């Protein structure tokens, strides 16, 4: 009788574990599938001309250089605004903020920023940067919009990295006559740097792949040149992929896959860098 129960329980466990394993595989395999499929389908389209050329024949031929450069500019612009602000906010939350109602409100605001739909950011960017501040549909407006969207990712990962630095380092530094800011600048920030960097890259990765926030703030349908100033509109990889896969009839499928591959490489490349930074920092860490 006892044996029977034991084996029954074992059976349940085996079934349960199999089910969970199956679910995990069903989650994970499509991810690998997507990446491999785009790699295989897109690779034939990749050529020197495709990467460095301008679109021709109504985007049905030629290259995607303006979209690549545009995404690069947007990512850079996003970094310029969101990194200093995000890291400073993280420093505030981790090193200065008292545990009070205001701080809870800040945290709630960050959670909310993270949850706001990307297209709503687009509306906000249109209302504030494009129309109210009169930046027009431009690299500047789009970068600012993406920056605010990226902010919560950077703040929360940077704060986590700062908090991971042992409290004892701070105490010792203060006891040796350091001010709070000296402690942060000389000990805490350098130690948290890899973690902050990882968060920054992950945040920018998301910004680079976004379409909805730049739809009405800076993305150009077709622009046969590179933007000359921050007040120019720009092509961008994700928006370009959207355009050529839905808006342009008789679009050669190879160019579509090629564009998807370049976008994926851009984004996943950043992801790999972030993973590398993180694992190297873990190995080198002295605490």
């Amino acid at each position, binding site marked *: 009788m006892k044996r029977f129960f034991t084996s029954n329980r074992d059976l349940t466990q085996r079934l349960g574990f199999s089910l969970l394993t199956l679910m995990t595989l069903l989650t994970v395999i499509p991810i690998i599938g997507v990446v491999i499929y785009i790699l295989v389908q897109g690779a034939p389209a990749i050529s020197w001309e495709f990467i460095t050329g301008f679109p021709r024949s109504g985007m049905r031929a030629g290259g995607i250089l303006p979209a690549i450069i545009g995404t690069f500019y947007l990512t850079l612009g996003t970094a310029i605004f969101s990194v200093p602000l995000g890291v400073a906010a993280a420093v505030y939350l981790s090193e200065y903020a008292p545990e009070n109602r205001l701080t809870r409100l800040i945290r709630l605001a960050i959670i909310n920023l993270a949850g706001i739909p990307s297209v709503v950011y687009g509306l906000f960017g249109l209302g504030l940067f494009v129309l109210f501040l009169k930046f027009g549909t431009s690299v500047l407006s789009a970068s600012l919009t993406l920056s605010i969207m990226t902010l919560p990712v950077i703040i929360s990962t940077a704060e986590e990295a700062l908090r991971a630095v042992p409290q004892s380092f*701070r105490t010792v530094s203060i*006891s040796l*006559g350091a001010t709070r800011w000296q402690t942060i600048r000389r000990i805490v920030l350098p130690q948290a740097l890899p973690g902050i960097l990882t968060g920054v890259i992950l945040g920018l990765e998301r910004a680079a792949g976004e379409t909805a926030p730049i739809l009405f703030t800076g993305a150009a349908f077709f622009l046969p040149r590179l933007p000359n100033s921050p007040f120019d509109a720009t092509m961008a990889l994700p928006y370009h992929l959207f355009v050529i896969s839905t808006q342009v009839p008789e679009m050669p499928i190879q160019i579509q896959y090629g564009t998807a591959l370049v976008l994926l490489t851009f984004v996943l490349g950043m992801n790999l860098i972030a993973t590398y930074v993180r694992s190297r920092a873990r190995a080198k860490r002295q605490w």
Partner: protein
Amino acid sequence: MNKIAIEDLNLQYADGTESLNGINLEVPANAITVLFGPAGGGKSSLLRCINRLNDLAEVKKMTGRILLDGGNILDQKTDVIALRRKVGMVFARPVVLPMSIRQNLTYGLELAGEKHKSRLDEAVERSLKQAALWEEVHDRLDEAAIALSGGQQQRLCLARVLALRPEVILLDEPTSGLDPISTGKVEASLQELKKNYTVILVPHSVQQAARTADHAAFFLQGKLVEYAPGTEIFTNPQDQRTEDYVTGRFG
């Protein structure tokens, strides 16, 4: 001559832990004063008042005065940074900063604005010698401090404090994690140091207290029970509670 005078000090933390009640204590210069007693008695809290490290904790209430050379350091107008350079502290767990041995030693001086390499080098050598570490590390000053053994790390922490030429050295169970040989080295350094510094030590055992104390104060549940020269308190304690603790009946 008294270096520090603590007058009617009361302290209560916001989270309700360990506190101090009506402490009066005079700490003589050029001697080792030991604060001992069971855990939670307020010894560490008192140490952290003397260099205002308690500013980092959430203190609910603090009254009384701590006079250092006659000036009240608890006063709002005290230059805390200057105070902490004058009153150094060594913690229970050796915490070396994540940098080289040399950088650990020059950290405090550089913060104070010292830029001359010769003076920094001089301070490195002097402080390492005072902490009896020079022989072991002088040829690898630029290696990561974390690579040192636990005992060496703790002596580095002591040297780091000495590099600043403080007047008072606070030690909070500095040998609690060390082997007997390292402990011996630290204790020997302290005997040497008291000639020039005022040393306040929270020992990690009654034995250590008895070995090192010129003066000893027995703390119990936030109160100072008895304060006497070391030769007396461990051989002929006046208070029953002190006697019970010293003879090992509790704690």
